[in-house]
């Protein structure tokens, strides 16, 4: 490392250190590209294709989330082909999935000028919500198959491998093995998949219940930072508190210990804090 490569992005020359992705390089010159499946703490899945850019000498567009910058590359982030690809990606996703809790997708649709209904009317991913445990809910109508949850469950964080993509083509979907409910699967309820889901397809049961009852109000939620008390690792917790009740627990994605990932105790083991029959009344 230490050596740098020089490339041009939209005609602007930029030097970046070796190993930098085109996406990062684009960020450095403030020609940022939109992303959906890319996540700062996960390997690039290359699946959504929202981040494609034009690379001189390459017939297809290239995914900037994973392509490593090389000396002399000429990258264009805003050509007609790039704009068309982004727009069509947004339109296709909007035609299958419910984007109400997907800010990145909605942003992409807006920025690219997507016509929401253009490819709608055919098959969609609309399906019953799967509520099979008390910790989190799977609402696959909102899934965009970004692979983030699979990666977080796999080698990128949890190494549990409880979920994977099953089926193919339009029927490809996230599955906990043979269509099983989560309690019958290998899931350990760390909720790291929930933490990285960009569309609300995976969502905490508490949040899901409150949203259904129209009680979830982002404006009333405050975040308190603390350290998890269950073991000695020292994971930083962000307690999302509404009306003096913890409604969700996360960890900062840039935290050096957790990288945003927690275990079942840290993420979901908070009920005792607000238990009505707590220690005081039992003692």
């Amino acid at each position, binding site marked *: 490392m230490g050596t740098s490569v020089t490339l041009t992005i939209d005609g602007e020359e930029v030097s970046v250190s070796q190993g930098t992705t085109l996406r990062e390089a684009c960020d450095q010159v403030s020609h940022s590209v939109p992303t959906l499946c890319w996540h700062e703490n996960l390997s690039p899945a290359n699946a959504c294709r929202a981040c494609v850019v034009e690379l001189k000498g390459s017939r297809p567009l290239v995914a900037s989330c994973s392509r490593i910058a090389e000396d002399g590359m000429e990258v264009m982030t805003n050509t007609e082909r790039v704009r068309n690809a982004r727009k069509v*990606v947004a339109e296709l996703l909007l035609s299958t999935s419910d984007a109400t809790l997907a800010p990145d997708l909605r942003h992409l649709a807006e920025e690219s000028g997507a016509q929401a209904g253009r490819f709608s009317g055919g098959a969609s991913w609309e399906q019953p919500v799967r509520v099979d445990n008390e910790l989190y809910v799977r609402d696959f109508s909102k899934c965009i*198959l970004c692979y983030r949850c699979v990666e977080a469950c796999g080698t990128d964080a949890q190494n549990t491998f409880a979920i994977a993509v099953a089926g193919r083509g339009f029927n490809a979907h996230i599955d906990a093995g043979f269509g099983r409910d989560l309690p019958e699967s290998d899931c350990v309820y760390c909720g790291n998949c929930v933490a990285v889901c960009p569309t609300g397809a995976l969502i905490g049961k508490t949040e899901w219940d409150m949203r259904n009852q129209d009680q979830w109000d982002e404006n009333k939620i405050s975040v308190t930072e603390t350290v998890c008390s269950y073991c000695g690792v020292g994971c930083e917790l962000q307690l999302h508190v509404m009306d003096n009740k913890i409604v969700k627990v996360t960890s900062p994605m840039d935290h050096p210990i957790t990288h945003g990932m927690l275990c079942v105790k840290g993420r979901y083991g908070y009920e005792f804090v607000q238990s009505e029959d707590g220690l005081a009344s039992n003692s």
Partner: protein
Amino acid sequence: MTEIRRLLPETGIMSGPTSVERLTERGFERAMARAMLMTPSDIIAEVSQSGIKGRGGAAFPTGLKWSMVSQAPGAQKYVVMNADESELGTFKDRVLLEQDPLGPLSGLVIAAHAVGARKAFCYIRGEYREVEQVLAAAIETLRRVGLVGPDTVEVEIRRGAGAYIAGEETALFNSIEGMRPEPRVKPPFPTNKGLWGSPTLIQNVETLANVAVLFAHDVEWFKAYGTKDTPGTKLVALSGHIHRPGVYEVPFGTPVADILNAPELGGSVAGTGRLGAVLLGGAAGTFLNAAEVQNTLLDYPSLSKVGASIGSGAMMVFDDTVDLTWVLTKMARFFAEESCGQCVPCRIGTRRILEIAESGNLWSRTQDLRELGQAMRDASICGLGQTAPLALLSALDRPELRHHD
């Protein structure tokens, strides 16, 4: 215009396709003996001089690929024969493997020697069960004569499980490794990081057969047929409205019309006898109208003038009564079923094309289809998604092919 027989054995050949005698009779024993005495760099130089290009569809210069694998750092290297023939209308590899499996296998052994691989895989389409038995018998023959084994190269057969996408080279690697056949992002290319992350040479069956006949003879012999740009012969698979459907071997540069009409080849258009269109290169290929068929040669420069390529060598012939909307709908269904589902443009795009076709709007929503097709070509991860809209786009560019019923 006559049929050539170089990749395919003479029709009157007496030896069994997997026999030791066949090795001698076809010159493959000589080919391997000659190659084994050459240095790897001499072998690669000869393959480069021959001008062989990959016959799987991409037409990448074979010698260049070999030298890339040879020079790639890594102690462990692999060679792979891609026999996952699944392109619509393509059955040339099947014919090659049924009639002369020792050819492609000899090419595989030579390739392994050239790039320094001690382990080879033959990845064969799962539906080709009978072909697989022939292939296995041929490997045994090579093992008996000492050309396959622990001291040379070990050859293992892996069977596909019915997915078109597994023929894509990196999806094929994932399949061999026991994973879902989802294509990998390139770069890194297989020449640097293929099977289990090692430099891997992957070639189509027909390409390896070309290597075998090249080393059974020499570069001059090899270049006796074909064009300056593309020496050698090509197997074409004729199907549809054609009097003599089947696999034929013709020199590159042969007029496409001759392939259809010559008495020894296609024997002229069947059905009404009037040509409507030819789908060249399979489902991932291009429609040519009758005039284009008259004016093109089976060579890359000639076909690129009409936006087409040879692809796998599949030629599906349609007479002038065939409703291409029906053909396009069937092809759309094929791609929708065969997309792996990994990337958005292909996963959802193939489904939307199918829906538009089934609802009868193929010719009225051309702008939507063109933009969708362009996005799939530009932004899909692999060749499946990138080529899935090609035939459709080529039909939209040739409105004369449309038939009203």
